[in-house]
């Protein structure tokens, strides 16, 4: 029998439907592996073994009675959830001390939608505190190691979700992406990670980092699984005024293994100086493979890319400074023992509860909004955002999708970039433009470095055209597999 930990969602669905394994066996097998391996990796903050087994048994019973719709491929499939999404009755720490003791009284809409499909919620994954970081080193509790090389980072901020999927400790996972937090860890860990267009997926229940940028999305082992999960969680939610009433992307339409006649753009600004040559080579070779499969490859220009990091760090930190003001020790979570008066309570609770990166961003965000600076920073950044978005709109008039690297390097060593926050921020240069523009993007494995570290290919599509990037990704998976076979090595 196949090692059931390694199953994809769609294969697990077939096995569950065919009675080859039960959801309970699947959960038990994953729990065993997590107990064995996660001590070294540190992907999970909270494993809900009892709850997961209970949900699995309930689905198994329902299936035995014929109460599971065969078109529902997610029923009984165990999935990990980033610890930034609220799950009723569970802690939601956002990898921060400040949420110590908090137990959520409600389900995030995306979690509720997965529950309705009968998904088994396996546990909560590690992350950079409140999503602030690109390496999952900023967790208050533990560092998540890269399963491909334990002395390297898993990427971030959804590093726990990506590492869990990469290490076969979850069939799939949910992450959240504000400036690359799904795509970059997926790239570092060799998974597929998708950031949907802004408004495609509800944010209700997603602890806000930057409200105008945050989106929830899947981290999976292949593109088909990403499409399955996206379909389950997308759609208008009356609790989220920014979610849009759109048909979910058409899975059948998207999952065609065909690139013929499609024009794909390579944005020249994404091949920056200082980029790791292996990464650049892998992405260019991915473009060549697409070309060989019938796609037309053109160079495009996104001239305002160079302003993206600046605009992003202004907008994201400004919004975060307000979003994180609610963590004050009054209604839930941690309160400092040094709370003689109200000001003490606030200042000490927040000083003791937040980690350094969160404090740094709160201070930056507070500064750019403080009296006299709004127009110079926040408003200017929003205007830069308009220019960045229109760059993409122009490019998508010509191109079906864009191909680019996800990050300038593969996974780096733990501790390597901790000293210089600005250097860390600059690493997000290739993922934040799509976030600012609100378009959809996906990271998909496209090769390895000589150290056998995964390299991701970023596929960007127009807003609300997730089927474009799913189609390109789905076709590319096969193209790459065929190329790998002819070269005599698996991918």
């Amino acid at each position, binding site marked *: 029998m196949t090692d059931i930990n390694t199953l994809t969602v769609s294969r697990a669905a077939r096995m569950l439907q065919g009675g080859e394994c039960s959801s309970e066996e699947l959960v038990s097998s994953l729990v065993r592996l997590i107990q064995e391996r996660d001590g070294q990796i540190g992907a999970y903050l909270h494993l809900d073994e009892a709850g997961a087994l209970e949900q699995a048994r309930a689905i198994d019973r329902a299936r035995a009675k014929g109460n599971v719709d065969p078109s529902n491929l997610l029923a009984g499939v165990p999935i990990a959830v980033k610890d930034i*999404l*609220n799950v009723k009755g569970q802690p*939601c720490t*956002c990898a921060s001390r400040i*949420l110590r003791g*908090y137990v*959520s*009284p*409600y389900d*995030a809409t995306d979690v509720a939608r997965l529950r309705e499909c009968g998904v088994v919620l396996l546990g909560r994954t590690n992350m950079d505190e409140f999503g602030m970081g690109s390496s999952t080193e900023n967790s208050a509790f533990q560092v998540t190691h890269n399963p491909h090389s334990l002395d390297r980072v898993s990427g971030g901020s959804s590093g726990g979700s990506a590492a869990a999927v990469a290490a076969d400790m979850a069939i799939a996972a949910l992450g959240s992406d504000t400036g690359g937090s799904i795509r970059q860890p997926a790239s570092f860990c060799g998974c597929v990670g998708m950031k949907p267009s802004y408004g495609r997926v509800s*944010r*209700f*229940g*997603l*602890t*806000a980092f*930057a*409200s*105008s940028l945050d989106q929830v999305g899947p981290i999976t082992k292949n593109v088909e699984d990403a499409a399955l999960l996206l379909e389950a969680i997308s759609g208008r939610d*009356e*609790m*989220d*005024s*920014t979610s849009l009433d759109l048909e979910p992307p058409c899975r059948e339409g998207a999952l065609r293994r065909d690139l013929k006649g499609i024009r794909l753009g390579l944005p020249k600004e994404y091949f920056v100086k200082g980029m790791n040559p292996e990464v650049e080579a892998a992405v260019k070779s991915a473009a060549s493979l697409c070309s060989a499969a019938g796609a037309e490859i053109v160079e495009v220009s996104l001239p305002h890319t160079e302003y993206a990091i600046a605009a992003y760090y202004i907008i994201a930190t*400004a*919004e975060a*400074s*307000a979003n994180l*003001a*609610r*963590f*004050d020790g*009054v*209604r*839930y979570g941690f309160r400092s023992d040094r709370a003689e008066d*109200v000001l003490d309570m*606030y200042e000490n609770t927040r000083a003791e509860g937040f980690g350094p990166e969160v404090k740094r961003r709160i201070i930056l965000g*507070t500064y750019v*909004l*403080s*009296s006299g600076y*709004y127009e110079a920073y*926040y408003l200017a950044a929003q205007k830069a955002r308009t220019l960045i978005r229109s760059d993409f709109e122009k490019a998508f008039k010509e191109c079906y999708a864009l191909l680019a690297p996800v990050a300038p390097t593969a996974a780096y060593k733990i501790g390597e970039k901790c000293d210089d926050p600005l250097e860390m921020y600059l690493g997000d240069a290739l993922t934040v433009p799509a976030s600012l523009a609100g378009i959809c993007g996906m990271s998909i494995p496209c090769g390895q470095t000589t150290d056998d570290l995964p390299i991701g290919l970023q596929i960007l599509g127009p807003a609300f055209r997730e089927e474009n990037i799913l189609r390109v990704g789905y076709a590319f998976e096969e193209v790459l597999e065929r190329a790998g076979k002819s070269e005599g090595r698996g991918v």
Partner: protein
Amino acid sequence: MKYIASIGLEVHVQLKTDSKMFCSCRTSFGDKPNANICPVCLGYPGTMPTMNEKAICYTVMTGLMTGSSISNYSKFDRKSYFYPDMPKNYQISQYDMPLCVGGSVEIESDAGARSVALCRIHLEEDVAKNLHFANHSGVDFNRAGTPLMEVVTEPDMVSPDEALAFLLALKQILQYVGASDCNLEEGNLRCDVNCSVRPEGTETLGTKSEIKNLNTFKGVHDALAYEIVRQVEALQNGERIVQDTRRWDVDAGATFQMRSKEAAHDYRYFPEPDLMPVVLLQEQIDTWKKGLPELPGARRKRFVAQYGLPEYDARVLAGDREVADLFEQAASFNTDYKSVSNWIMTELLRHLSETGKTVASLPLTPKALADLVALVGGGKVTSTSAKEILGELMAHGGDPATIMQARGLVQVNDSDELSMFVNEAVADNPKSVEDYRKGKKAAIQFLVGQVMKQSRGKANPQIVAQLVRERIDAH
């Protein structure tokens, strides 16, 4: 030197919606602490606001009543400051693009009628309630998130009386729109006032001080009266006025400087990213406009023209939307408009002010009122009996004719029946009879009154008077 005061008001109005501004919690008053709350109004991680359409509608309706221009594009912003009554430590408010801009409110005070210019009307969420104990404070979040409409005037009033007149006029408008119960005990209306004084003949406004959180109209009046004197005295003593925030101490009858909430008032406003803008098309505004009630002033004029009421009656009736509605509905059943008006203005309004009830809470129907007035006019019942019937109608409702029959209040017009009472009255009061004969015509009223008393108010007073005269003249 004489000084002129400039007074501006910021009136916070709790809107009469069923649910809160940004979540579906109830807005009821007086429940147990922390009973009407949810993850959204408690600022839980991951929660987001959703806009209550009714609150937007009420604000725009109020703006239409005050002749404000309704913004085609408006948005919400976050106003950041830390305070335990703030669940998110930012308040969702409107900064630079409020729903309504400009406008004015007509006021009347002893100084005459004039209009007070409005700066803006915007919408925000109310905060929670802090309760203070010996060694700690407690927070009740029931109120947090109640829709709060803020009406901001220009510094356009010159006296506490004008400020009071403005509040009364605004209250009238709000009740007309149905936007608020304007119940002061429940904190539906709360005012911040700002006030400055300047020497007569100068143009530039003086340095203002702000008095926060006044929740009675009397408080507004008294605090302003105190503050004007304080500032004038300070200036006369050669002191400088410092811009500050003060609170009114009712017991001390004085204002005191407050410890500032946020030293620099650096609120870090930015557009609320969790909400989409409100874009009101003319079409939508026009629809709301059609549903807009007539303004009290216009209605007053119409009452004079259409029903021939005296100016005084028209003013009293039109002053309260429910009373005016009752009058018009009753007038559709009975064309003796002045009599309908009289009954409302005397008996009904007295009943309301004695009991503190509202017209809406009475079981009395307009038709019953009109019928009662017709019974009096048709000589079926005396005024005295009609008052008793009205009392019953206001207490339990019903049909006036039925009550009249059941209680035996039908007016006695039969001369034979009345003669008995008349004979008795004349026999028992020789002094009055003597006075009348000596030409003191008023003495007859006393005798009629005696008959009315004996008949328990049912006798027709005109017939009685006639009979008394005949009886005395006959002897």
